[in-house]
């Protein structure tokens, strides 16, 4: 067994898939960030809010005012450098840090695919993605034909985890038995040409797409891994992602996954892609390829033990983190304790309506209540996200408590009046209205002030 692992870790494979992946990744990131900027979201999501919702443990991360744009510029420059493979290691580190920092500014904007970008770019720090067809080759006058097999396989593994876990998460009674939330979402897509008025309205289509989505997510990794089914798998990937891209406002995610899945193909495919790229950039290339570089056979990873232990640790976390919800007694979709960072995509339709009441002692010593207008403190987007996520509710309650205490209010207590509707169920009270949230502390512990949902959702 050990020797098998050792042999695997020593084995090498053609470097071109990782080079193509690097170029694809760089270009997609460049485009994503420019698009984000162009849409004005830096302003509306990061600069306009007077208050940001923080990830537990990352309260120290703040927006940098107008310098926040600088973070995006770092992202853009590093994406370009990653694409051309110039100072690759430094560039991917800068990209990972700046991108992740941006994500940590405000968890209102949390998306699984942003988390995917963060984890992937972290992993890529340790991969020799500049070994082949990169500007670094030109400057270092060295290029490698082969890289360790595991460096490509670990990207395949990460992609497989994303697909497989999001498939597992779909094995639940709401998704499979009630076709929720697709049953709510799809009929509202009546304005899509051809299928909108017809298919999207049919009950069997909602069920078919729920089951199909589950089988798709679970089987894609295997279809892509086996050579015989790879082409079919990739066609499915393209179809599925483009289709969901038409149906839902999911931005760049479909394209990132389509490009990313190319890594499963053999090096022959990637050589063809590289040939195409060469043709496109030929005019510029002539000037730089003059230098006499040596082409080496196998790339050896420096500090191999260190790198391998980091990568192994990374995957152990990836494999177990999505199951942390088992440690909470509450219904996952309702309380969302252990929900994020687990590839749970499109699983819930949740609408909340949450207002806050503060209690304080008036100047005359009388106990007084007043209801807070959320619009005085939050953007519409923040209010929407806050209204159904307990950690947001708690953090905002503390913000309000601090705000009014600083204004000189005495004995401030904060109560939430919160109602949530989940996956087609009628609304239910979400937070115990008698609990002073200002006294509750954020932690990884179960939040006892969430009123349990009076229904059971079975499954993963």
């Amino acid at each position, binding site marked *: 067994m050990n020797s098998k692992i050792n042999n695997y870790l020593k084995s090498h494979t053609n470097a071109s898939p990782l080079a193509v992946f690097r170029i694809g990744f760089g270009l997609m990131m460049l485009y994503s960030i420019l698009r984000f900027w162009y*849409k004005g*979201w830096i302003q*509306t*999501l990061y600069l306009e809010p007077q208050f940001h919702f923080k990830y537990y443990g990352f309260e120290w991360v703040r927006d940098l005012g107008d310098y926040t744009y600088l973070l995006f510029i770092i992202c853009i420059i590093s994406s370009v450098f990653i694409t051309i493979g110039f100072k690759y290691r430094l560039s991917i580190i800068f990209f990972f840090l700046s991108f992740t920092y941006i994500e940590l500014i405000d968890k209102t*904007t949390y*998306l*699984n*695919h942003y988390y995917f970008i963060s984890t992937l770019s972290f992993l890529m720090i340790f991969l020799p993605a500049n070994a082949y067809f990169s500007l670094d080759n030109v400057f270092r006058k060295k290029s490698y034909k082969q890289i360790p097999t595991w460096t490509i396989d670990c990207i395949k593994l990460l992609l497989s985890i994303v697909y497989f876990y999001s498939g597992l998460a779909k094995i639940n009674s709401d998704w499979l038995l*009630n076709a929720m939330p697709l*049953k*709510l*979402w799809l*009929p*509202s*897509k*009546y*304005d899509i040409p051809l299928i909108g*008025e*017809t298919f999207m*309205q*049919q*009950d*069997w289509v909602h069920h*078919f797409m729920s089951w199909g989505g589950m089988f798709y997510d679970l089987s894609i990794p295997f279809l892509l891994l086996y050579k015989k089914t790879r082409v079919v798998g990739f066609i499915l990937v393209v179809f599925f992602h483009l289709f969901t891209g038409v149906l*839902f*406002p*999911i*931005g*760049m*995610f479909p394209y990132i996954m389509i490009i990313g899945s190319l890594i499963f193909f053999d090096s022959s495919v990637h050589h063809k892609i590289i040939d195409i790229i060469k043709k496109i950039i030929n005019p510029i290339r002539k000037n730089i390829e003059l230098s006499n570089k040596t082409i080496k056979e196998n790339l050896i990873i420096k500090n191999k033990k260190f790198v391998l232990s980091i990568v192994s640790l990374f995957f152990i976390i990836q494999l177990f983190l999505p199951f942390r919800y088992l440690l909470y007694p509450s219904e996952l979709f309702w309380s969302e304790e252990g929900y994020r960072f687990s590839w749970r*995509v*499109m699983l819930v*339709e949740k*609408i*909340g*309506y949450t207002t806050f009441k503060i209690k*304080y002692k*008036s100047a005359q010593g009388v106990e*007084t*209540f*007043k*209801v*807070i*207008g959320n619009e005085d403190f939050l953007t*519409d*987007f923040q209010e*929407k996200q806050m209204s159904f996520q307990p950690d947001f509710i708690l953090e905002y309650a503390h913000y309000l408590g601090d705000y009014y205490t600083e204004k000189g209010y005495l004995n401030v207590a904060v109560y939430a009046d919160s*109602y*949530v*509707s989940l996956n*087609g*169920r*009628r*609304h239910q009270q979400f937070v115990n209205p008698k609990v002073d949230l200002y006294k509750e502390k954020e932690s990884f512990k179960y939040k006892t002030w969430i009123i349990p949902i009076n229904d059971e959702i079975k499954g993963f």
Partner: protein
Amino acid sequence: MIKKIFSFTSILIFLIFSCSSDNDDSSSEVWVQKSEMLTNWADNFIIPSHSTLLDNLVYLEGAGNSFTNLPNQQNLDSLRTVFINAYMSWQYVEMFDIGPAEESYYKSKMNIYPTTVSRIEINIQNENTDFNNSNNYSAQGFPALDYLLYGIETSDELIISKYNTDSKYLSYLSKVINQMLQNTYPIIEEWGPYRNTFVNSVENTATSSVNKMTNDFIYYYEKGFRANKFGIPAGVFSGSTLPEKVEGYYNKNISKQLALEAFQAIKTFYIGNGGVSLSQYIDDVSSDGYADLSTDILDQFDIAESLINGLDNNFYNQIITDNNKVLETYDAIQQGTILLKTDMLSVLQIATDYVDADGD
């Protein structure tokens, strides 16, 4: 084996299609239904409400002219009567803060209360008022008239004598009335061409008519109705009561009447008055858990309405004598907000008109 698979698949396909034809509840007519709803809203609610209001404002102008020519008790009484009629018909208009009305800040120019008395007095003395200046929004419209007709002095005799002695007051009174007409004419004119734009915008986007109007309706229920008429004066948002913030404060007798009329407007809009509106739309798209939603909302409206009926005609008095009754009423109205903002939005899948970001 192949035969087996074939027969199994055909049975499956047969089952799927036979089931689906049972469930086919007119859902393929979403477009038609939505456009029927929008037509109903435009032709039977928005446009007629505005013209009724305009008629009343024209009467108001007439009565205003009579009073300006001869400020006596009789003319004051008739001016007050048409004022109340016009204010009542306004209750059917305020929620339609959409299209031309939204662009010209119509709602703000017509009904921000409490009115800013100091500003009115300054305008009266200056004799020159730019009513399109946002600082003057709260010095015009119905609340300003409420002050001018009931509040500038402590008794009718003194009010009449003030108008007789100081022509600046008369002039401001007619300017305010005239400005209300000037605010309203363009809205009605623009609804002519805008009507077709409104009715044809049936797709499901943040800016389409169904979504905007539904969001506006909820916004009006929550802010214009629940907060402005009840919550704010009852001190829900301030910790202490603010009874002088009731609607029709200077009249001292119409706050309940106005609130009930506004609730009537909310209910008829929700039900649709014989045409398609939100309640039927909820019924048509809802499944399983939401089966009773449309009537639950209506029941909640009725509960709230009966509590409003139990309040003093003058909310000011009610708040001063027994604010708990107002708070109870507020809570009942709030229950309606919860139904609209969670269950109704969930079942109708109205794209919210404000959030612009990717999802996943």
